[in-house]
């Protein structure tokens, strides 16, 4: 996984509430589309006109937000399905950080698995950042210092922070814990034999 330390990038305002993962990536793109191509289909229901050309009203199609790597989002971004393709699609279009008052819980976990930093802040603080994004400001996100633009602090679990900073893969860490897992399983087989066929 690519480590996330500091990011200096354009932030696009995305105030819509309850953006669900179906809206981020349609299910048809989750069936056979290669992961690296998902970015071109992100938000397709809002991003393209009926003839397939970019909809100029969609925020990420506007020239000032070209190359945006941060989205400042409305509440409960990423609600709905567990499809990790929603995170892959965002990452595929270059997004590396999301800032919102709240996130869908499965989506939130999926972000950390892919080096996409989801930052939770109270609504009033997200509103203030939304205004700055609307003004076209470049944001600095510093995960080490847990600060946005040098001023706005944010909370994140220490373990998740460390894994993002170092680009650590959860699976690699757990595989090293096989002795603990095997010991648990052996004891559990004695405790709950009906679980094991």
């Amino acid at each position, binding site marked *: 996984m690519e480590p996330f330390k500091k990011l200096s990038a354009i932030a696009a305002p995305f105030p819509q509430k*309850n953006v669900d993962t179906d809206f981020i990536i349609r299910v*048809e793109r989750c*069936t056979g589309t290669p992961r690296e191509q998902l970015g071109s289909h992100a938000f397709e229901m809002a991003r393209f006109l009926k003839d397939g050309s970019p909809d100029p009203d969609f925020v990420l199609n506007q020239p000032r937000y070209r190359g945006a790597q941060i989205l400042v989002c409305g509440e409960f971004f990423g609600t*709905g399905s*567990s499809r990790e393709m929603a995170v892959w699609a965002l990452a595929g279009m270059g997004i590396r950080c999301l800032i919102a008052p709240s996130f869908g819980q499965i989506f939130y976990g999926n972000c950390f*698995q892919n080096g996409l930093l989801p930052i939770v802040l109270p609504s009033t603080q997200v509103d203030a950042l939304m205004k700055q994004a609307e003004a076209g400001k470049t944001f600095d996100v510093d995960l080490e210092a847990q600060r946005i633009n040098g001023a706005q602090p944010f909370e994140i679990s*220490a373990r998740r922070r460390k894994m993002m900073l170092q680009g650590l893969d959860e699976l690699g860490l757990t595989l090293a814990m096989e002795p603990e897992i095997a010991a648990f399983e052996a004891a559990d087989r004695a405790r709950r034999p009906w679980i094991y*066929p």
Partner: protein
Amino acid sequence: MAGRTLFDKIWDLHVVDELGDGMQLMFVDRHLIHELSGHRGQLEIARRGLKMRNPELAVGSMDHVVSTAPGSRGGNAPWADKIIETFRAEGKKSGMKIYDIGQDGQGIVHVVGPELGFTLPGTLLVCGDSHTCTHGALGSLAWGIGTTELVHVLATQTIVQQKPKKMRVDFRGAPARGVVAKDLILALIGKIGTAGGMGYAVEYADEAIRGLSAEGRMTVCNLSIELGAKVGMIAPDQTTYDYLKGRRHAPAGAHWEQALAHWKTLPSDADAKFDTEHAIDCASLAPQITWGTSPEDVIGVDGRIPDHKPDALAYMGLAAGKPIAGTKVDRVFIGSCTNSRLPDLRAAAEVVKGRKAAKHVQAWVVPGSWRIKQDAEAEGLHEVFRAAGFEWREAGCSMCVAANGDYVAPLERCVSTSNRNFVGRQGPRARTHLASPAMAAAAAIAGEIVDVRGF
């Protein structure tokens, strides 16, 4: 010592190790796998040179991309057949059990898990699908996972999680005739919103929940994710044990007795503490129906369309202030992991019997599993539906997620027994109204949204 909740008791039994900072490594007892998220996970562990650690603790089924066209035995397209074939071949290599198309045991994962007795009280169960919360209906601690987590479970039989907070919801009083499990949970989502359960494991309790069948409880728990909660559960009781006994993967003999003794210790202690509590007065509820593009956009069928979400109304082609009843519909879909079980099909058939679907309505019934289809046919339910002009189809997810090409056409209005009315969920520009099976059946007959209590 303070009392513990159902959730605490199961959670604590599964902690392999503390990882610090509130994160824990948890042992997974049951892994349900479907072809769409499953085949990606299988290919990924193969790519990493890893093996499935505990194939005996997994069961697979085909549901998302299978064709549900009558008589069909595969996907709707070459890409779907390729996914099915990959899942089948990789499953065989790993030694896990897969219930294939046309076999007793195939169907929507959240239908067949309980049906097979694979889902058990007190287990930690995961699946690469957000509606895994369904299994909480039998007292299982169950939640949906992403692809990377799925790979983690395949390779290590564990998952890393942060313990959520706890919420209890009491469904008080007895619901009136025509008000069923779907209405109870939709009413709760309408009351506290789709983010109301965010960060919580929810326990559903009290009189109206105790009065539900095991299948009705599955409908309630299924929509936990639409409440924002990854986990929704109901304490096991005699209804649970009667439902499970004798099922194919359920423990038998001495193991059944041992399991039963353990299960009886699981319900929350009387003095258990919850971080948040809510209550719903069930006696005053009308049958529920959604009007917008989020499950929280829900009213009683005797209500008027609200005005606070103009974008949702524009998408849905509805006018604020008008009664929701009388809204003309084009499609009816009875199916999905929410409402495709035998009691759901019986409830719909009871409304349909001796009547005809309105001429302009295309109505589908998609049983949740191969077994449910056979059992329904043995009761003659398929004839009831066919005689009324409904289409009787093969088991699968179908038009709930529309991954297999089963679509609602653009601008068409569908009353659906599924779980999500998101923009484009049932097809680009499709308009979805969520409701119970009986309400959906009544809409097909009337050709418009109608109060099933008048039928």
